[in-house]
């Protein structure tokens, strides 16, 4: 029998705010244990929560970016359960009135090749709600210890419809969601810091069947690759059960990304009764049109929209946009340089080759550093001169390095590096003659009609010219001499 997989994701995203969800204490990561605490975070007797409006702003913004319907009122509920990492033994969350409903995430599936854009589709969302994170419980030989630094950090739960059909789609969903969150400044989504966490609900059913199969919840998928691997593993496990005529049991399983195996945590019979009820400590907060309008004005263009616009408006290839678009700041930089120079293709190539090299090898600390050291106007000046042939490709790297380390103008660098001292025609002709003489095979090829054989002469000429030759002039001279040869 042919089966299809049905996957829904529950993604927890830590919302970037200065302070915690319900107290004034700072939210942060990597600090000594239990330093980001106060009476509210530790749930001391008498402490009360007060909502952080900045966190609500962030989730409303996320909802607007993902096309969700924003509730008119933000209402808080208590989710009651005992666990040592939960200081109050209830979590303040949103039960029956999530702040965002509906919406979707646009995903891109892998293309046929790296340089080919894959299929796009929209994965509908069920809801997004806001809640508070818990502390971190760890165990060692001495016993169990709890760090409450994370407790109370604003946390968004994004629930997808069971509309994903493969591990690859789940991977694409998380990649796209992460990009939107980063674009919106909503979260840094650093999975290593636990800023993005994912649980998956997975079931299989005979292809074409409308009814959903029994679902298994997969937990602790703590990297995007583990999400893909864990889901693929779970689908295989369920298929194997189905194929030997077994029954899939509703349960929660824990996936270990290191070993690639999963084990059952609990079955449905042990499901919690969370006894949700409206939190009497928190008044519902009205989210009016003016509030939404203010946040809508802050919403950036979405990554895939930007990609489509770059492709169309600047006519740059997918290989460039697919590198530029995931990083909002890099995309911004590209767009400015492209517009100022009028040479988007050259600008894009320069950024993804030269600038990314500087970023990768540590000569630049990040895109803001790039922007400071090589402001777009200066980069555009460089790109224009490249396009005009004033800077050859052989000379480009040297000029780029000089721009990075100094503040001289492109013209000054050209002068300083002697690039303006153009070879005279006689000199150029001699280099060309030498090159033709030095490569009889290429000469023969060219004569027999192989047009590209001309490139075999250009290398030696450019090398001899040490950047002083204009490629167009070289091309013309070679063609003239070859015609005579």
């Amino acid at each position, binding site marked *: 029998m042919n089966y299809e997989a049905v996957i829904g994701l529950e993604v927890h995203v830590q919302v970037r705010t200065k302070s915690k969800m319900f107290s004034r204490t700072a939210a942060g990561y990597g600090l000594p244990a239990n330093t980001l605490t106060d*009476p509210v975070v*530790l*749930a*001391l*007797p*008498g*402490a*009360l*929560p*007060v*909502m952080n409006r900045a966190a609500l702003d962030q989730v409303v913004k996320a909802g607007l970016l993902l096309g969700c319907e924003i509730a008119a009122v933000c209402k808080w509920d*208590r989710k*009651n359960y*005992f666990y*040592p990492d939960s*200081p*109050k*033994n*209830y979590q303040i969350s949103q039960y029956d009135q999530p702040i965002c409903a509906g919406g979707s995430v646009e995903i891109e599936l892998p293309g046929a090749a790296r340089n080919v854009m894959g299929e796009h589709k929209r994965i509908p969302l069920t809801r997004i709600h806001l809640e508070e994170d818990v502390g971190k419980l760890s165990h060692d030989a001495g016993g*169990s210890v*709890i760090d409450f630094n994370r407790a109370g950090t604003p946390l968004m739960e994004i629930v997808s419809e069971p509309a994903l059909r493969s591990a690859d789609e789940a991977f694409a969903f998380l990649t796209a969601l992460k990009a939107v969150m980063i674009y919106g400044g909503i979260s840094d989504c650093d999975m290593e810091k636990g800023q993005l966490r994912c649980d998956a609900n997975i079931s299989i059913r005979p292809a074409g069947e409308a009814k959903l199969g029994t679902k298994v919840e997969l937990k602790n998928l703590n990297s995007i690759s583990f999400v893909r691997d864990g889901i693929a593993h779970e689908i295989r496990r369920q298929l194997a059960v189905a194929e030997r005529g077994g029954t899939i049991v509703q349960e929660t399983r824990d996936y270990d990304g290191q070993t690639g195996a999963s084990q059952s945590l609990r079955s449905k019979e042990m499901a919690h*009764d969370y*006894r*949700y*009820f409206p939190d*009497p*400590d*928190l*008044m519902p907060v009205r989210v009016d049109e003016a509030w939404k309008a203010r946040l809508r004005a802050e919403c950036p263009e979405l990554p895939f929209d930007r990609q489509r616009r770059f492709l169309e408006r600047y006519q740059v290839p997918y290989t460039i946009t697919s590198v530029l678009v995931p990083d909002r700041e890099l995309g911004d930089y590209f767009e400015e340089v492209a517009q100022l120079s009028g040479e988007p293709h050259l600008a894009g190539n320069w950024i993804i080759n030269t600038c990314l090299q500087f970023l990768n090898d540590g000569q630049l600390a990040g895109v803001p550093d790039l922007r400071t050291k090589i402001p777009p106007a200066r980069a555009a000046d460089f790109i224009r001169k490249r396009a005009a042939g004033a800077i050859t490709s052989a000379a480009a790297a040297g000029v780029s390095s000089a721009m990075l380390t100094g503040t001289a103008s492109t013209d000054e660098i050209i002068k300083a590096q002697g690039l303006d001292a153009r070879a005279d025609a006689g000199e150029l002709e001699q280099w060309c003659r030498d090159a033709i003489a030095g490569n009889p095979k290429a000469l023969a090829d060219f004569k027999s009609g192989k047009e590209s054989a001309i490139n075999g002469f250009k290398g030696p000429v450019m090398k001899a010219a040490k950047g002083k030759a204009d490629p167009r002039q070289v091309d013309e001279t070679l063609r003239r001499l070859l015609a005579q040869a």
Partner: protein
Amino acid sequence: MKPAGSPALFHQTVAALAAQLEARQLSAVELMRAVIARTEAVEERVQAFNSHDAADALAQAAASDARRAAGQARGPLDGIPVGLKDVIAVEGQPLTASSRMLANFVSPYDGTAARKLKAAGAVCWGRLNLDEFAMGSSTENSAFRTTRNPWDLERVPGGSSGGSAAAVAAGEAIVSFGSDTGGSIRQPAALCGIVGMKPTYGLVSRYGLIAFASSLDQIGPFARTVEDAAIALGAVAGHDPLDSTSVPVEVPDYRAELAKRRGPWKLGIPKEYFGAGLDPEVGAAVEAAIGHYRKLGCQVREISLPHTKYAVGAYYIIATAECSSNLSRYDGIRYGHRAAGAKDVVDLYFQSRAEGFGAEVKRRIILGTYVLSSGYYDAYYLRAQKVRTLIRRDFLEAYKEVDAILTPTSPTPAFKRGEKAADPLAMYLSDTYTIGVNLAGLPGLSLPCGFTRDGLPIGLQIIGQPFAEAELLAIAQAYERDHDWVGRHPEL
């Protein structure tokens, strides 16, 4: 009973003591010494305090005297010994809720009430006993001691703020603060013959008040006179950004307002509050008080609060539901009682909570857990909330015709120790007249309106409109002015 005259320092009012402090006829240290001496003399019999720190109180009093000497006195409460129910967090002081669970807990922070009282110069004096986690009406549910009624040591002081009421009645504090979830200030005030006030929900910050039922709890004062209650309330009232349920309203100078509001008022008498279960002596005293208002020219009319009969039921669903969740934090993990020898974390929860909580607290946690459980929520909690809305509507409807409502505070005077301890339902019914006020979020005040033949105090409850505390206090003072109940003190 002593006649009114020039009472001992510890029986005087804030207003009188503040005048003496202001005139330098008295120092805060002298006053504190008098209160400490009184406490030492009677506390063994009254048992109002869970703990007190005389040296610390004297240091606070000395600081008050120094301020005054420097011309920096902070108003009428500066240097006045103020007792606090042991659910109100004061930095560095024990905070036990009269529970084994918190027997050794010391608050590392000031709640808003404590912060404001300190800012007013009050001496935070002692931790006053209560029914564990404010659950009870007799202060017999304390894990540590049973507070006695100063008017009859065989009787209860009421509850849950029994220690706060008894301390003021016995001269162990000049004023005190308690918390009122279903009558926990007004009922003990009535039973101990003093003034007690529950403000409108949202007037006083709950930040730093150990929660029993969040949507019902309010901090309020116990005082010997209406004027003292006005002074004390003014010190703690006002919007607090640390409590989302605190309401941003203008807080008037309640004491100054007293003189400006002279009535006559239109007063409502709810027929549902004068039925079966009302002690005849209490009924007669309340009727007499109503008669007095008539004499003052007030229009008195019968009104109806038709959903009153559902109040106790709705209350015990809402309050227990909220408490079952509020008390989850007491788990033996971060602070508080932790059972020894637990096998695992679940066992640790079970044992710590089994050992840490008393029977009434457990009963309410179980009730509350039940009513919130999947499948029961709609039938209990949701329905109780609807009843609550109807009860509030009853009151607001009545306020279209009357300025305030008069009722007995408690159906009976102070009952004997142990009399209702074994019968939770009878105990719950002692809050019949006070619970509606909490459900509706209204301000309510109890003031003395006489004594039974056995010499037990009787309380008149006056229920005001939302945030109309100034009017409510003025109405109460209009009665108080013409009676000498204030001058009576229990013989101890």
